[in-house]
């Protein structure tokens, strides 16, 4: 099959994308409303002085490559979370610049961090 034929087939597929069912749309709507804040979100809380947050802040200020800093933090988090079930919410990680940067760069970790 030549490029022209395949491009034609792909173009037809592009014009007829798989469509979500009405049931899925309803569930998505239900989730969106259930998880929507009822008012403007509160201001970020003051940073916790936990050791993990201090490490987080030090790494964010150190002149480390972003990938190295991120990998280090994820590794430390995994160690802490399995050791003594530190609550990430309590540590205020997501209120720090590096925490938010990680979530923008690696959205998949929103699942690792659990309830945000």
């Amino acid at each position, binding site marked *: *099959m*030549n*490029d022209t*034929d*395949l491009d*034609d*087939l*792909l173009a*037809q*597929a*592009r014009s*007829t*994308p*798989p*469509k*979500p*069912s009405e049931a*899925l*749309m309803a*569930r*998505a*709507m239900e*989730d*969106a*409303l259930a*998880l*929507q*804040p*009822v*008012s*403007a*979100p509160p201001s970020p809380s003051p940073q916790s002085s936990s050791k993990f947050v201090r490490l987080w802040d030090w790494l964010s200020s150190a002149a480390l490559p972003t990938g190295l800093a991120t990998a280090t933090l994820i590794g430390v988090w995994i160690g802490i979370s399995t050791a003594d079930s530190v609550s990430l919410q309590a540590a205020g990680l*997501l209120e720090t610049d590096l925490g*938010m940067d990680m*979530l*923008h760069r690696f*959205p*998949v970790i*929103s*699942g690792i961090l659990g*309830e*945000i």
Partner: protein
Amino acid sequence: MTRALDAPSELSDEDLLASYGAGDPRAARALVARLTPKAFAVARRLLSSEAEAEEVTQEALVRLWRFAPKWRTGEAQVSTWLYRVVVNLCSDRLRKKREAPLQDGMEIADEAPTAEARLSEEDRQDALQRGLLQLPERQRQAVILRHLEGLSNPAIAEILGIGVEAVESLTARGKRRLAELLAPRRQELGYQDD
């Protein structure tokens, strides 16, 4: 400060997300209408199961709703972020289940039908989907995002977490492999021999 939600359809995803985070249910409705089809289309093409694609779509959107109050304007595109979550969730499922490219019973026919046996449009799209599911995962992702979702190479690079040149390479190799897979069915698909 969020913009007044007079005409949701005219607002950017980011503006809608800001309004959503501020508690406006109209923004919720607009975002669901706009983003659910996008997320589902990618998930459906990446996975062989419609049910799993629906689960991935719902899960990806839940993560967005939870993240919305903390979204920082100007850092990333909402759709790019969402596509990235969808692609990663699909990869997780494929990795965990060691899913075969095709579901049971969805085997590609070994024998080529006669030239007169043209497929319906639905069958043609089904044949394309089967071909896509036989591609290596990364090539499949690149081809779907580029040629079916119409995203730019830089956007795909951001979604897949690779460089633009790597996207170009994956897309080219994926298309080439797809053409090889579909070649035996060329006439059936309605294309003439060269």
